[in-house]
């Protein structure tokens, strides 16, 4: 199988799902948005949003990219009415993309009850419209796949991450786009990673990117390392990093992107998730779903998520395939896992076999097969304040 089907969007990208996004533009509209989406949550209505009332260019960019993501077919914006978020600009951009869009302003609609009723009417009508949309051919080279590890333990770097790396190599070899991330979990690997830069000028940028992450976390006093990592046998950030790094596979690194940048062509990219400049808004990513949201904003159709301790999360907008590194966790949380990579430790398979299974599963999920977290209704989403400066010319292939 090297071809699936997708929903063609006006920018030429194709989606593997046809989600209707309900997006709140400030926490004050969160409850109404959730109530609007809830009855339709199993029919493709997903809730996303930004809680802040202060303006933020990163949040503007993220919501714009998410609302025009190829997996999104229609958008309902939920505004209280007085927040800073520029709802008119966002609505105009979504409309320009050809998607059905509406904005519901709670203060104008007459409050909670009326807004929920009006919103549900719109969602019901629009979901019928989306169900009638045709699909067209989607070759593997058009797929964008993101990868993350969460709830890591000492098995993550031995089984699931290197197996996902093999799947990544296969995707890149077929012309697809693969994105790995979390520069805070590459601390200690910067030198060996830099050797994989596709161009000499990119080498320094890769090292600088990890140095920035190290400064960021040092300023805040903690690395990207949770107590559960230590319970699972990981001792230091550089040990965790080496395990995390292996999910990038062996392909040359084509470029660095920042949240919301869509890679210009196929290849392997590093997503730099740590904000630029002095530390302003706190930790770069407060939990795994903040990184998943950023991978999706970069165009990821689906996410490969490796876990050892046992994360259960999924995501709004893009399906999450969970690759479980630890065979004991696989048995304990079997309903939540898609692939048992821990079998490598028990002599029930090889990294090559698990890598091939991950690749096959990517194609099946792209073709519509539901992941464990989709079946269980997971649609996590979180986004906080950040600030970035634009990329230098060395970061992207010319």
């Amino acid at each position, binding site marked *: 199988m090297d071809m699936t089907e997708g929903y063609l969007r006006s920018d030429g990208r194709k989606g593997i799902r046809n989600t209707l996004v309900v997006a709140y533009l400030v926490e004050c509209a969160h409850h109404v948005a959730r109530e609007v989406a809830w009855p339709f949550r199993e029919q493709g209505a997903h809730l996303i949003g930004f809680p802040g009332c202060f303006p933020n260019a990163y949040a503007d960019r993220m919501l714009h990219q998410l609302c025009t993501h190829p997996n999104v077919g229609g958008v309902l914006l939920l505004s209280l009415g007085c927040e800073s978020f520029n709802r008119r600009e966002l609505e105009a951009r979504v409309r320009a993309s050809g998607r059905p869009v509406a904005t519901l302003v709670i203060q104008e609609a007459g409050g909670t009850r009326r807004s929920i009723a009006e919103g549900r009417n719109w969602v019901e009508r629009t979901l019928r419209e989306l169900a009638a949309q045709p699909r067209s051919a989607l070759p593997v080279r058009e797929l964008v796949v993101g990868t993350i590890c969460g709830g890591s*333990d*000492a*098995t993550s*770097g*031995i089984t699931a991450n290197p197996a996902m790396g093999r799947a990544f190599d296969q995707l890149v070899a077929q012309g697809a786009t693969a994105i790995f991330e979390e520069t805070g979990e590459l*601390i*200690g*690997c910067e030198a*060996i990673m830099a050797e994989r830069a596709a161009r000499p000028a990119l080498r320094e940028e890769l090292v600088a990117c990890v140095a920035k992450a*190290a400064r960021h*976390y*040092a300023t805040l006093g*903690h*690395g990207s*390392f*949770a*107590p559960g990592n*230590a*319970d*699972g*046998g*990981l*001792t*230091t*950030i*550089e*040990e965790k990093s*080496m*395990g995390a790094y292996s999910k990038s596979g062996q392909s040359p690194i084509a470029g660095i992107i920042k949240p919301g940048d869509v890679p210009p062509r196929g290849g392997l990219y590093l997503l730099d998730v740590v904000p630029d400049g002095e530390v302003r808004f706190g930790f770069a990513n407060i939990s795994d779903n903040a990184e998943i949201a950023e991978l999706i904003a970069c165009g990821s159709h689906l996410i490969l998520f490796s876990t*050892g301790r046992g994360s259960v999360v999924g995501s709004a907008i893009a399906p999450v395939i969970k690759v479980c590194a*630890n*065979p*004991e966790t696989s048995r304990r949380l079997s309903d939540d896992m898609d692939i048992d990579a821990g079998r490598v*430790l*028990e002599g029930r398979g090889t990294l090559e076999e698990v890598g091939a299974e991950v690749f096959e599963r990517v194609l099946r999920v792209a073709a519509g097969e539901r992941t464990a977290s989709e079946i269980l209704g997971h649609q996590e989403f979180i986004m906080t304040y950040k600030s970035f400066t634009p990329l230098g010319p060395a970061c992207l292939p010319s």
Partner: protein
Amino acid sequence: MQLHPQDNVVVLTRTVAAGERVCVGGVTVMIERALALGHKLAACDIPAGAPILKYGVSIGSAAVPIPAGAHVHTHNLRSNYLPTYLHATQQRYFEEHP
């Protein structure tokens, strides 16, 4: 399991119970406390300050001399980058702020 020929630690591929004997680098050691799979044991005697090698690269430095077969973890291995946060750190905060 040794992940790289240069490593001075090995990784447990299954959970071992307290009192079990395992063979590490030619010596048999008794496991004092139960250890989950993925935890590390010293493959040889490691002097204080020496790098701990796993995957063939340094994952930090030995904080104290570590005898062959000993559990290598947060009590005797320090990051060369950022300190490792544990629940015990938070426990101290609650004790100091009753």
